[in-house]
């Protein structure tokens, strides 16, 4: 009898422990793994600045960066932007994007969700525009040891 009770308590506690360890909060390694958090922030910030910056004098560089950095749905989305890049050439447009701040909302099993605040400054010909803030939610996946952006949503 006592054995049964003890076994029952044991099973209950094991389930509770599993929930504590495997619960949503615990699975998420954002900030709890500072090195991994810093790494994905650095990678995604660099990539976002690169693919959102373009100059009419060399959109090829941006397109190549997009090919390297994006995967899946994000790659398809970016291809839809090609007409906009062509337009940039026509309008002598240069856009410089700087990531102001990025934070990790979710990090687990090779998938990360980030919130990215950035500033975009557009220059048309010789007229330098003011910087415009923009915010995006980015999903990145670790593919062959490299973080690649698989989804971008305007926020």
């Amino acid at each position, binding site marked *: 009898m006592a054995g049964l009770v003890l076994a029952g308590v044991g099973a209950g*506690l094991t389930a509770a422990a599993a929930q504590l360890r495997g619960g949503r909060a615990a699975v998420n390694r954002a900030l709890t793994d500072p090195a991994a958090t810093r790494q994905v922030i650095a990678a995604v910030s660099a990539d976002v600045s690169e693919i959102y910056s373009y100059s009419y004098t060399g959109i090829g560089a941006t397109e190549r960066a997009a090919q390297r950095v994006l995967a899946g749905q994000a790659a398809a989305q970016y291809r839809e932007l090609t007409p906009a890049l062509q337009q940039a050439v026509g309008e002598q447009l240069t856009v410089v994007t700087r990531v102001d701040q990025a934070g990790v909302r979710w990090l687990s099993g090779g998938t990360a969700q980030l919130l990215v605040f950035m500033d975009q400054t557009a220059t048309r010909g010789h007229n330098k525009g003011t910087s415009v803030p923009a915010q995006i939610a980015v999903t990145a996946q670790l593919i062959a040891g490299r973080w690649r952006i698989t989804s971008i949503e305007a926020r």
Partner: protein
Amino acid sequence: MTKAKSVNPLLAVAAALAVAAAACAAWFGWSWYSAAHSGSAAYSRARDTVLQSAEQAVLNFNTLNYHHATEGLQVWLASSTGVLHAQLAQNLRQEVRLVQQKQTITTARILDGAVTQLDTGAGTASVMVALDVTVTPATGSPFVESESEVGQLTRTASGWKLAELGYPSGSAASSPPSSSPGTVTPTPAPSPRRS
């Protein structure tokens, strides 16, 4: 010769099982305790609590109806601590008058957020929040603005509260300028800065 003590084999098995069960229970208990009290589990929970508190506080600070200006600003007060709270408390009457004069209604919807720094020992955290703010002016139609806001939170006896709230440092609408450290004006819901 004394008769050898005969042991009831059933009893022996039962005793052995009881010992095994007790050992298992102890192990399970310990594993539960260590999971519940491990630093990383507590830290993850704190991170999620901070984000939840921050999103609610930022939502509150971007919600104000001139019909209920005093009540609305009381919610701002309840969501804040430190300098932000003190400044707000000091200018409360003035703020209420301003909102009533402007006759604006501001509502907000949180889109996304992340904790960027968390020190559970010191009880401080930094967050970033993206939100849509809908402003209904006295005349004219409502308009929606996408906002990026950054905040500092401090742990108080009644939960995590906003100690600072502003725009990202590099932003054109950044507030306040970095030359005035320590004083952050609350994001004024009734008077949007970006048009």
